[in-house]
């Protein structure tokens, strides 16, 4: 028997994502069916590059009927269902190999990786039925969160060889989707009040919309009523229920539920992790550590359990470190933070805790030496994170040193160039700094802010003419116009040795904020070379005078800014030295 595969998709205005999706899967399937439910962009144009089987289906508010329509057009033996904002993670031939393995299996569940944060690399992971034989009885059901229903469990298998990766949604996009989903779910639930799947979805949507009090009854119902036959739903219902209790601050209930669930599902890592979180928030740090350790030992649970990636590794380690820190055990705390960083170098939170611990125990220099010795600075991502921590803590030249080991690499991205330039400038290495910043291309997100720092560098070094032309260039761009105004004003003031003349007769919030921002940047300046001649003093004075004169907004903002400085330095002091000898 020849196993052919058809990709079935329904789409609407997917011009942004469709190309990536189709590219990820075209080599693995024999046929692509695309059903459009009313696109107004160039979705069709993209689709046509991959298939000629494109159909229109008028949107009737029912996802299942649209999908089933698409299935009706498919000729393959197997069907793979994807959304445009997903990609298939697989090696060539893997899909075919999988379906040819057994004649008894009719459907495979694949892990869906759902990112929480692009920046930190956190994601949720759960199984979903997306690959099944093209048989009449296997059709989508449900107006929303439609699923393929296969009634005999023995013909369903799961695999982790192939995975589906979902794109990151912007918060706005996600909320828009949630609103749409919620309306449809409410309608459906009215018709089928005993449908606990619907209740489960309702709970998730409310939770996602930050309404845990509304989500709670639905999730409780779903968890209590669904059985282990529907572990694919019961497990996430449990997980979301715990999260919901957490968001409501019902920590005792959360702990009780975790205890109960841990005895029923001892393999379920996420339960230990969330139980640990509850204990941590109740300041039961020693107990929390035990739970996190259990989670860490469990690692990734069997695929049937909806799982948040990291709860069995770096997240658990991070929280363990935090608890150890709270218990005053800095050695184990550091150890946990470091292991967390090794597990996921994108998850940067442990780095800042580690950094602060090192700084507390030693000096900025010993901190740098330690991180260097441990090899963290060879990893570009970590080096950037750590360099930024040094910079924010007020040590630009050490920040520069953090990047030294990575800056020899030939290919440098914008972020790296930006940070490198920034730290060079604020440690008084102006030519190098300007050189890095100038390499950032116009299209880059870092371009405008890089311009600002270039301007500051030019002001500090007294290159007023160049600064003026940079300011004029920035003026032309609407998004940097306010900054340009401040910079041009500063240039004129410094050049003529006059007090601030920013032509602001009334308090302008944007102007004040920009000036304050620039002042804050300036306060990062700490040249290595003590004899470095610069206009630092004058620049700070001009900005300060300007803000002072811009009543009432400016001087208040400035006062608040110094209040912030006082508070920050007090906090740092308390962190580093505790209460000192204060016993009297």
């Amino acid at each position, binding site marked *: 028997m020849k196993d052919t595969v058809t990709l079935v998709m329904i789409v609407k205005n997917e011009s942004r994502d469709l190309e990536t999706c189709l590219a990820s899967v075209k080599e693995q399937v024999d046929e692509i069916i695309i059903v459009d439910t009313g696109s107004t962009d160039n979705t069709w144009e993209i689709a046509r590059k991959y298939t000629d089987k494109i159909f229109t289906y008028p949107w009737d508010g029912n996802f299942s009927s649209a999908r089933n329509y698409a299935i009706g057009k498919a000729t393959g033996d197997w069907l793979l269902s994807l959304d445009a904002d997903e990609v298939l993670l697989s090696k060539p031939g893997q899909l075919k190999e999988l379906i040819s393995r057994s004649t008894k299996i009719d459907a495979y569940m694949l892990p869906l990786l759902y990112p929480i944060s692009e920046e930190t690399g956190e994601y949720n992971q759960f199984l979903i039925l997306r690959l099944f034989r093209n048989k009449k009885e296997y059709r989508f059901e449900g107006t929303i969160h439609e699923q393929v229903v296969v009634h005999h469990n023995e013909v369903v298998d799961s695999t982790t060889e192939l995975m589906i990766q979902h794109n990151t949604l912007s918060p706005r996009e996600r909320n828009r989707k949630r609103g749409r989903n919620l309306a449809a779910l409410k309608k459906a639930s009215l018709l089928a009040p005993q449908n606990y799947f619907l209740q489960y979805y309702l709970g998730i949507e409310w939770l996602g919309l930050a309404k845990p009090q509304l989500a709670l009854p639905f999730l409780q119902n779903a968890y209590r009523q669904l059985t282990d036959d529907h572990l694919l739903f019961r497990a996430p219902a449990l997980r979301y229920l715990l999260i919901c209790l957490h968001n409501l601050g019902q920590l005792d209930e959360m702990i009780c539920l975790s205890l109960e669930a841990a005895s029923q599902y001892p393999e379920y890592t996420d339960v230990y992790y969330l139980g640990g979180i509850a204990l941590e928030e109740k300041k039961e740090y020693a107990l929390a550590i035990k739970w996190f350790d259990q989670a860490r030992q469990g690692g990734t649970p069997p695929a049937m359990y909806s799982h948040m990636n990291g709860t069995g590794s770096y997240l658990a380690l991070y929280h363990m470190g935090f608890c150890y820190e709270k218990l005053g055990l800095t050695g184990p705390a550091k150890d946990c933070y470091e292991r967390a960083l090794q597990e996921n170098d994108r998850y940067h939170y442990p780095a800042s805790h580690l950094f602060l611990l090192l700084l507390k125990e030693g*000096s900025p220099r010993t901190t740098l030496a330690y991180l260097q010795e441990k090899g963290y600075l060879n990893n570009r991502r970590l080096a950037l994170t750590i360099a930024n921590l040094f910079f924010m803590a007020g040590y630009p030249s050490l920040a520069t040193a953090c990047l030294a080991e990575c800056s020899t690499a030939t290919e440098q991205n914008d972020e790296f160039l930006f940070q490198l330039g920034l730290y060079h400038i604020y440690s008084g290495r102006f030519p190098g700094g300007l050189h890095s910043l100038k390499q950032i291309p116009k299209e880059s997100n870092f371009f405008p802010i890089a311009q600002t720092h270039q301007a500051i560098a030019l002001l500090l070094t007294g290159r007023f003419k160049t600064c003026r032309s940079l300011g004029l260039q920035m003026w032309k761009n609407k998004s940097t116009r306010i900054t340009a105004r401040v910079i041009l004003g500063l240039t004129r003031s410094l050049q003529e040795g006059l007090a601030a003349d920013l032509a602001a007769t009334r308090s302008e919030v944007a102007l004040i904020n920009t000036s304050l921002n620039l002042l804050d940047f300036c306060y990062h*300046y700490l040249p290595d070379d003590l004899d470095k001649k610069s206009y630092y003093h004058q620049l700070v004075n001009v900005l300060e005078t300007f803000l002072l004169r811009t009543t009432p907004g400016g001087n208040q903002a400035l006062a608040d800014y110094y209040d912030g400085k006082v508070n920050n330095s007090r906090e740092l002091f308390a962190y580093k030295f505790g209460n*000192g*000898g*204060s016993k009297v």
Partner: protein
Amino acid sequence: MGNRISLCMIVKNEESNIRRCLASVMDVVDEIIIVDTGSQDTTPRVALELGAKVYHFPWNDNFSDARNLSLSKAAGEWILFLDADEELTTESKKVLLQLTSEENVEGYFTRIINYIGKDGWTETCPDLVFRLFRNKPEYRFRGAIHEQIADVILEKNKQATYRVAEDVIILHYGYLDSQIDQKDKKKRNLTIIQKELAADSDNNLLKYHYGIELYRAERYQEAAEVLIQVANHTDPNTIYFAKLLRYIVLSYHSAGQPAKALEVIHLGLQFFPNYADLYYYGGLTHLTQKQYAKAAEFFSQAIALPEQPAQYASFAGVRGFRSLYHLGEIAESFLNYEEALHYYLASLRDNPNFQPALERIIVILEPRKNPAYTRECLEKVLDLGSPQAKLILSNIFFNQKAYQLALEFLEPTSDTASVPEEILLRKAFCLVQQRRFLEALILLGEFTPDSPRYLLAKFNELFCFWVQGKKRKVQVIAGELRDLGLAEDTDNILKLLLKSLEKRKAVRKICLGQDGIDLLLDLLSRLLDLNEPEKANELYKKVVPACLVERQWDIIQLYHQYGPVERTVELLKEYLTINRDGKAHFLLAESYQELGNFVEAEQHYRYAIEQDSDQPRYFIGQIRLYENWRRKITEKNLAGEQHGEEELP
């Protein structure tokens, strides 16, 4: 059973001690047995005069042999063993008779109070020793150096019970610096014990003593290693276990291994949760690591503990003046002077002779700037009546350059004939600093050429005239001084002083050696104190800068002390071009802040913290700067400043 007591001793060259010792026990013991191991002084004769039976024993590097000879001669039912540099307190005597009539005791641990340190500044350190036991032929000393008998008795007599006789107190003077040539004793002890250990390597007790001798010989790392081994083979119920742990802590602490020291402290506290010494040394260890909060916690805990059992051999003051003193220090490093004063006063109350606390109190009061206030404060807390107290205070004031007070506390002794020359000279010094030149010169005139301080007196005379600009007088005295024959550096200083009286501008700069620089710094300090900054500057400029490089920091501190602050800033900037250290950045930041230059101050606080982030004061300075900055902005707002064009700096 009778209860006669035989005092047994071994002695060698103890003529200065033996009388005191024997007098203290004369009326309580029934016989005195003395074994002399080779005295070359009058010891045996004195002993005989005092009624002792004296035997001679040629020294064979083995203390036990000598001691056992004395035991073999004893006829009493009980043995009391003392060393010649010890004595029994009067109160102990009555108890002694009671103890020896007890039926079921084979021996007693008694208290011993060790006096340590220098004469005039002694401290006590109590401990327990086994010195009173039944006289039986099978009970004999063992071990070449740390001769033991308590364990021998237990071996011979399994049923033997011991008690601690806390009311029997022996005073021991042998650890005083004046009593022994420490080094030789340490070396001798170490060699003997090493020999012994070679023959008996499994002897744990011997090893314990070996470890302690290593510690005393300042071989801390080895001491710690040996003592750890001992601890691993010692039953925690052993009477010296607590002491053993403390020695391990001390060894690690002194060997620069704070982490190990703390580990042992935490372990030790599980056995002896109330052991004040462990908390005290824990505090010290944290302090050396600049973990101030932890250190404060440990010292506070030490203070709160109850009276220590005798077998802890607790070091005097760990529950009181010592811990309080360190708490004061910690408060000071947090610039919290009120709190520091509170602790130092408490420390002084606990031990009125603890001078370090007194010194800190005086430093905080700033006696140079506030003489009247300082005096008033001290009168409230101290009894300033006794001549000794006055002298001590005068000393401290002098060291703090508070010459007016130093003088006040000296002045009442007006009869110069009876006053030691040193005091006289100091008085003259203070008078000069008060510009009471005539009085100073009268005092200085009393020194005759045969006095060892004649040169110094002359030099002060010269300085008196020099300050007043009396060129002729200066030249005359300079001539006299030269006739006495001067060291090269002193002569150079003289040249410096003479040249500065001349009008010529371009004079070749003078290069000074170590002593010359010391003298110069002294002169600068005195001139600044006299409010003569120009004169100080004149001298400073005439010295080749290169030879002052190493003392730059001292010079900066002088200017910091006396001002002007602008000069401090100048010097600090110069200093920082060569040395980038936190303390200089910090002082510069403070100076800038004083001058109202917040922008520069802010940068230098950051530099300081970057260089050395263990100093709470750097952070506190920074916080205060931001607070002042904030205040300045509020003030400017309130003043509703004129909107004229301001000139930029």
